[in-house]
């Protein structure tokens, strides 16, 4: 039989339901693949073999009892390590939470498990999701499956790499300024950031509460659509005040025709100096592929987009400072021993527990929220947010989705980008989507002619039009597949088939 990494989520769930193989067999195959591939990828911070086998056995028992199986029956899934799962640690890749045992399970994780998914473990990330390369993890690097001298992107680099290397079929990440879409682009997988409010944030360690959104990674748009169905099927989450009701049916309408739909492009942006020629070429390919599927291309403009980095770095760090204030070493987290006063204990615990970037963001946030400073940056940033949102509204009156790069370049090598400002600038094409709260998805377009590394193209859609956005993403994928540029579902070649045979 084939390796489990050759199967998509739908095929695994169908195979388990049909009795072609058991969920336990799939789980063992995934554990086998992880064991074989992980030494070179290091996508995981914790592999939850015990939980995985137990969940898979439960799925098999349900089938044996004749019960109906969930959408993701037996599908191996990994979770970014800022998502709580009872029975695992939730470290956020930080020394602060090195030994933190999850006291409960996050809603998004719960929904995947309720759909029958098998939890394989927790994936590496930039510390507290501050970063774009997963290099700021306090524990170890994660290597890009397409070239292990390169970063997988970030902050959800572990989740993207685990999917790209075929260690799991699906993974969840979180996206505050591009942390799903950029690593998806770097690792050649599909990554979706739904509209803010579509997926519950309850149980996901917050970075920027008004920007964070959870979403899935998969090796095809269909797998991502299936995961979205599992995430929203139970309705809005009463534990998250900002969560909203969204109908399921992402997969059901995925193949519907896009004839007559319109995609917006921004000619100015296409000529942006930061874009490498191969990324520009990929955007052209994507435009052609969408055209082949009957999508009309229109020009749109987002005049305030240039300010989105500034707005983002006012809003994000302010919210991060506030969200991370709770890490004082009293109720949880690292506590400096031997301190005689609370203030000393707090300051030293935080100094040890947080890495450099986590300290930088919190310091910036603490400054930006100070009396007198708040009115100079934070408040106007929220006004600029209104302008950016209006830009999108105007643009979406003329098109169904906007096409953008997911990142200006392909994956860079370790240590190549160490300056924070340079790192921040690389978020240019993804963060305006978080500022407006819209949905965005990154679809692989193929390998760059110069670097040979994966390039993804990003589609952004209007708020709560994520079904239509995924339909457009699928059209793009179909077009590229038809022209032979990509093969959806495929694993990074160096790792395909390494371990993970379905016995």
């Amino acid at each position, binding site marked *: 039989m084939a390796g489990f990494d050759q199967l998509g989520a739908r095929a695994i769930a169908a195979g388990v339901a049909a009795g072609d193989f058991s969920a336990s067999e799939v789980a063992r195959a995934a554990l086998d693949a992880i064991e074989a591939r992980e030494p070179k990828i290091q996508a995981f911070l914790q592999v939850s073999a015990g939980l995985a086998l137990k969940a898979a056995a439960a799925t098999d028992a349900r089938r044996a009892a004749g019960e109906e199986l969930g959408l993701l029956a037996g599908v191996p899934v990994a979770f970014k390590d*800022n998502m709580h799962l009872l029975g695992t640690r939730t470290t956020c890749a930080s020394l602060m939470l090195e030994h933190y045992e999850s006291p409960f399970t*996050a809603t998004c994780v719960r929904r995947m498990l309720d759909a029958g998914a098998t939890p394989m473990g927790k994936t590496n990330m930039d510390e507290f999701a501050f970063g774009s390369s997963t290099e700021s993890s306090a524990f170890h690097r994660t290597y890009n499956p397409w070239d292990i001298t390169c970063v997988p992107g970030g902050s959800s680099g572990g989740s993207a790499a685990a999917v790209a290397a075929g260690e799991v079929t699906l993974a969840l990440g979180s996206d505050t300024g591009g942390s799903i879409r950029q690593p998806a682009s770097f690792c050649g997988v599909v990554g979706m950031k739904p509209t803010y409010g579509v997926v519950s944030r*309850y149980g996901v360690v917050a970075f920027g509460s008004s920007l964070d959104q959870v979403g899935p990674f998969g090796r095809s748009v269909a797998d991502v659509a299936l995961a979205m169905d599992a995430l929203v099927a139970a309705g809005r989450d*009463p534990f998250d*005040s900002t969560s909203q009701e969204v109908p399921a049916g992402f997969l059901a309408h995925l193949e519907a025709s896009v004839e007559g739909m319109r995609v917006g492009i921004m000619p100015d942006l296409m000529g942006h100096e930061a874009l490498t020629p191969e990324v520009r070429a990929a955007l052209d390919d994507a435009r052609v592929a969408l055209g082949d599927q009957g999508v009309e291309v229109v020009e749109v403009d987002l005049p305030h987009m240039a300010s989105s980095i500034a707005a983002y770095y006012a809003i994000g760090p302010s919210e991060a400072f*506030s969200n991370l204030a*709770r890490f*004082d070493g009293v109720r949880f987290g690292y506590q400096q021993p031997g301190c005689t006063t609370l203030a000393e204990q707090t300051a030293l615990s935080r100094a040890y527990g947080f890495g450099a970037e986590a300290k930088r963001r919190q310091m910036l946030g603490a400054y930006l929220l100070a*009396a007198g400073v708040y009115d100079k940056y934070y408040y106007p940033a929220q006004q600029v947010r209104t302008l950016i949102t209006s830009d999108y509204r105007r643009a979406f009156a003329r098109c169904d989705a906007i096409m953008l790069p997911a990142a200006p370049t392909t994956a860079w090598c370790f240590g190549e980008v160490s300056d924070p400002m340079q790192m921040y600038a690389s978020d240019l094409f993804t963060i305006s989507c978080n500022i407006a709260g819209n949905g965005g998805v990154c679809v692989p377009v193929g390998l760059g002619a110069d670097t040979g590394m994966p390039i993804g193209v990003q589609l952004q859609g209007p708020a709560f039009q994520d079904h239509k956005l995924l339909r457009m993403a699928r059209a793009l994928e179909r077009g590229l597949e038809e022209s032979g540029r990509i093969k959806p579902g495929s694993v990074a070649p160096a790792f395909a088939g390494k371990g993970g045979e379905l016995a």
Partner: protein
Amino acid sequence: MRNVREVLRDWEAVIGLEVHTELTTLKTKMFCDCRLSHDDPPNTNVCPVCLGMPGALPVPNERAIEAIVMAGIATDCQIQRRSYFYRKHYFYPDMSKNYQTTQGPVAFCMHGHLDLEVTGQGAEERPEFTVEKAAGGSYVVPIRILRIHMEEDAAKMVHVGGTEGRITSASESLIDYNRCGTPLIELVTEPDLRTPEEARLFMEQLRQTFRTLGISDCSLENGSMRCDGNVSIRRRGDERLGTKTEMKNLNSFKALHDALAYEICRQAEVLEEGGVVCQETRHWEPSRRRTVVMRAKETSDDYRMYPDPDLAPFDLSDEFIERCRARVPELPLAKRDRYVADYGLKRADAAQIASNPAVAAIFEEVVVAVAKDVIPTVANVVVNLLPATRAVTAAQVASLADLLANNTITFAAAREVLETVDGTDANPETVVDERGMRQSTDTDALKTTVDEVLIRCADQVRQYREGNRRVIGFLVGQCMKASHGTGNPKLFNQLLRERLKG
């Protein structure tokens, strides 16, 4: 130091109050579904939300929002439809997130007022109102309320190794998060209060109001209602405000009054000796009857407030506000006025009955069940006898009032009857009969008693005859005693006078 009444002749005090009230009548906390409870073992009612665990998110308790809107309606506040919750940051472990979720510049309730009626001795603290006082012995003054906002209470901390459980000199502190996240409303007055008595009355009236609304048990003792006072003084006639100090630990009405009185006198002494009042927070020490400095407040704290991104804005609908309005019961002042108008009660009696929702409920039940001429007797029983009881029914009060009104029993007997039926379903009339408490109207029997007393109390008889008419009261008392309370005191009085005349 001079006493506060003297000081207030030269100085005017400017007082503002911040009153925190826990919504103790709710079932759950402000932002999670943990049980509200005062007496569970430490850290029993805690969940990821109120422990501030990473990933936890708040969801506001609808009943709490209704309660604060009701509080706003009851204090004539403008109910703000649009408002946000804010995060107020400070590193202190009694707030598990190191920020408190509270409201920003716009609170649910803005710009209300309570009218205070200051009577009796307390009115004398305010010298400039002597004219009005001469007229009615009291004055009425409106106290403006700046705002009432919604927030969450902090955890309880026990400081170990220090004196009196205070934080100073403690070597460590223990934290219990059961209280953390309890719904709390904070009312801030404008600095309209001028005397400690006004401050005390304001708190009393506020407590009556909130109790009537049923939103809190308002226990100062248990800390479910807490008050901080700000006070500054200025020379009479001066428009400029003085430097204010903030008073903490005002956990009784007496403490509130006495701490403000002390602080006014202390500030006056400092200023009269040419010193300056420092802006500081002071702690009231009831045992030593003084305030001591807790901390200097040189700069205002920077709480880095900003709208909480985890909580959707509020945009209260007319329907929501009207639903709250419909749930506001008749308030104590309106009730008092109605009792005066409808039942001819004395204003003070009416106010006393109206101030306690449970007492008022019994009164209202009885008053519709008895004849009109019995109502004054009902009021008498409710005001003077009911407060000492635990569980007396309206039917028992009605029966007792009838027995009193038709002179079947004496007031002394009524007290005993009420004590006997308290907590049971016994009929007062049965008790009266069982114990032979019916007043005797048999004049011959009473005459015998009177004669016995007159013989026994020769001294008092002589005093009476020498012109000390007041001694008759003593003799009536002796007769009542001798008749075991069954004699009618009026009849005894009459018979005694007749006998002494002869």
